[in-house]
């Protein structure tokens, strides 16, 4: 293996990391808001809203992300005059915004199921206790339901975040020069697929490892009730054992 070449490749690929992270975090942030809405629609009990959310999740989870990206980036070009009339063409002309839109719509479908699972895992007793204390509506949601649901949903949301970092690689197909895009360009220029692959793989593994660690830290921070209480009185602890 040629270490000089690999070092050079590493530096070049590193320049794509900001865009990769930008795509992943922007779409996850927008997607979370949309996912929350979808989850509330599913749980609203209103038939129309419920079916809309179900259909949405089925469509966006059941078809490949690349098809969704092409549909937005190339497909909407078919309606260019209309979009220009509405002043939306400047948005749909940019591969960056098309990628963000596709990733957002896609992650919203997956995340809405995660959030729904979290919301449904909130024990009835907690809600009843809160109602007994006189909480209702938004206060109940903000103080009781939301914190418990977030705690439950966090591990699955962490996996979704990693999937999204991986999914941003598809943006390279519509000319976005993030890590995979630069890697593909380097491979087709140098024909040294293995070296470039190893370096790009290492970068993705570092990114995903860091994200996993951060999520684990947040999980730890959010669940003080599961941690062992600090040993304040060692004498008493000896009695418990």
């Amino acid at each position, binding site marked *: 293996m040629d270490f000089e070449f690999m070092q050079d490749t590493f530096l070049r690929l590193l320049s794509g990391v900001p865009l990769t992270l930008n795509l992943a975090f922007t779409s996850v942030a927008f997607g979370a808001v949309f996912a929350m809405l979808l989850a509330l629609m599913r749980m609203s009990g209103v038939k129309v809203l419920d079916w809309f959310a179900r259909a949405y999740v089925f469509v966006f989870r059941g078809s490949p992300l690349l098809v969704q990206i*092409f*549909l937005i980036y*190339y497909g909407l070009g078919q309606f260019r005059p209309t979009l220009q009339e509405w002043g939306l063409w400047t948005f749909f002309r940019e591969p960056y915004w098309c990628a963000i839109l596709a990733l957002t719509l896609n992650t919203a479908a997956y995340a809405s199921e995660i959030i729904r699972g979290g919301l449904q895992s909130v024990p009835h007793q907690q809600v009843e206790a809160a109602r007994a204390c006189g909480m209702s509506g938004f206060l109940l949601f903000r103080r009781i339901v939301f914190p418990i649901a977030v705690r439950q949903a966090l591990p699955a949301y962490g996996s979704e975040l990693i999937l999204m970092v991986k999914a941003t690689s598809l943006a390279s*197909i519509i000319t976005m020069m993030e890590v995979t895009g630069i890697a593909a360009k380097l491979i087709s220029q140098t024909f040294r697929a293995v070296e470039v692959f190893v370096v*790009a793989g290492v970068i993705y593994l570092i990114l995903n490892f860091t994200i996993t660690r951060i999520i684990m830290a947040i999980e730890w921070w959010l669940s003080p009730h599961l941690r062992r209480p600090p040993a304040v009185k060692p004498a008493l602890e000896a009695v418990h054992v």
Partner: protein
Amino acid sequence: MQHLSYFELVGFGPQGWGLALLTATGMTLAVALCGFLAGSVLGTFVAWAKLSGGLVARSVADGYTTILRGIPDLLVIYLFYFGGSAALGAIASLFGEDGFIGVPAFLTGALAIGIVSGAYQAEVFRGAFQVVSRGEIEAARSVGMHRWLMFRRIIAPQVLRYAIPGLGNTWQLVLKESALISVTGLVELLRQSHIAAGSTRRPFDFYVTAAILYLLITWVSTYLFQRAETHSMRGMRRAS
């Protein structure tokens, strides 16, 4: 050029792309299925290594599943496509041939899918094996079954039963991943839609059609996996 209606465009008439799209759907299914089966074989061996391998086999298996699940599938496909051509080119240059040699897109596609889905399937099999009760394995051993016989009669049927839901999820992943193979030029569903979209300038119509066909495959395979699950669980008592 007269304006065709949507159904003329994707239908089977003289100017319709119906047949091409259907053939391409068949290609998508073929490449996904081959990749999935390759992944099953690989996944079985990796799960075996994880469960009862030595230190080396276990670390290799752990490294494989961690790495392949942590990097984008598209990179793996590029590795196989360009790396395969480079390797073939190197071999060919030994025989005095020069220039770019393309590897068959179907083979690279199926292999790439197999390698990636093998990592997911290994985890599915490992999880399913851990549900098989220890008592059954001890009982099999006590009646004198050898490893292969025990695998065939006791372990494999039960692991497969518990693995069906996980395998269903992996199959959906594989199906969606097969769309990425279009970057190597294999004429599967997405590639064919791309070609049709380019030649008719009706990209929206064709990508919507592709999405509908993918959803149809997803829907049918979800149904089939559910059937398989109820069938395999028919003799089991449910805790409910």
